[in-house]
């Protein structure tokens, strides 16, 4: 299982930050062409990101690019420049399945022109309309996982983001939409970059909500999140027993898996495998 516990954002038009970002061990890097790039720099940024993807050693991190949203004149130019060199496209402000169809069509063209494999999309749900359509969006074959952002959504409701109780519901809905479609779910960033204790609690909360990872804004946050996603010893021990029992049942051709005399269902085995993946990666 590919772990995506951390996705570290780096501004796409800052070569100094981009060239060093591979050393921090984040599971994914997001080279950002959207919010961190001022309008007059959009052109330069997409070219710089293209070159960085071809020249910088990003270590073991998966290479994502957050392109500009569909309501801008930039998203298609971004795609044409960077898609051949990126692993995943992070697409902001997705509101419908049709949004993904539009982007997917252009991606298909570029993939054919360049003779490259199909790239995946991680849509970011940021509006109420997007949230209402999240379950359908998650079903799109290009979707690797679902992410979300609360700024626009709370603005739509006229409430301050920090006090918005509805965000717990949004989190749950993102996880439900993603998981029901067999996709990953990604929680949003923890903005207080110096509060590492708060981040630890936040990331653990994300894990127990069912998320596969959280966004990070500063390299110092990477290790903390990885630690927060590390299962407890008891979880690991139980998971080992379950996976061993499942393997034994398979070897012996038994349809029923039992651990300590109790029957274990397939989803429980899957959970155990996931726990071991989180535990044994380091």
């Amino acid at each position, binding site marked *: 299982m590919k772990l995506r516990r951390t996705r570290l954002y780096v501004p796409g038009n800052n070569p100094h930050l981009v*060239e060093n970002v591979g050393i921090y061990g984040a599971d994914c890097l997001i080279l950002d062409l959207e919010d961190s790039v001022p309008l007059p720099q959009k*052109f330069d940024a997409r070219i710089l990101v293209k070159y960085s993807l071809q020249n910088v050693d990003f270590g073991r991190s998966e290479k994502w690019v957050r392109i500009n949203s569909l309501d801008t004149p930039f998203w298609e130019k971004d795609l044409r420049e960077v898609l051949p060199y990126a692993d995943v496209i992070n697409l902001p402000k997705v509101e419908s399945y049709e949004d993904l169809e539009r982007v997917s069509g252009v991606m298909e063209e570029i993939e054919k022109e360049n003779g490259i494999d199909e790239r995946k999309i991680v849509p970011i749900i940021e509006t109420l309309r997007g949230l209402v359509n999240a379950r359908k969006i998650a079903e799109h074959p290009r979707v690797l996982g679902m992410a979300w952002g609360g700024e626009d959504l709370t603005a739509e409701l006229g409430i301050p983001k920090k006090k918005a109780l509805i965000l717990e519901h949004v989190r749950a809905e993102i996880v439900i939409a993603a998981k029901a479609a067999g996709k990953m779910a990604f929680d949003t960033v923890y903005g207080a970059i110096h509060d590492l204790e708060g981040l630890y609690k936040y990331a653990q909360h994300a894990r127990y909500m069912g998320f596969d990872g959280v966004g990070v804004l500063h390299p110092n946050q990477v290790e903390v999140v990885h630690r927060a996603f590390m299962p407890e010893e008891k979880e690991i021990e139980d998971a080992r027993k379950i996976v061993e029992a499942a393997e034994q049942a398979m070897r012996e051709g038994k349809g029923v898996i039992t651990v300590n005399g109790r029957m274990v269902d397939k989803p429980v085995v899957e959970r155990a495998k996931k726990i071991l993946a989180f535990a044994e990666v380091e």
Partner: protein
Amino acid sequence: MVEAGTSEKGDVKVTIEPANEREIVIKSKLERIYGNAIRNTVEELTSGITAKIVVEDMGALDWVLRARMESALRKFRGEEQ
């Protein structure tokens, strides 16, 4: 005149302006060490272009210089941003 890049650390700022003669100006704190390498890259990427090309280096790696040169040249050729 077109411009690409910034004056931030690790970056390079490239400006290209129409001129009657080809001229390349390199400004770098590390000119003694990297001046020739920068000039070679700029010469290679701009051969055949009659313009004044000014490169202000802030310690950029070669791939950054190439990216900024591509931005500046595409703007100079009138590509829509």
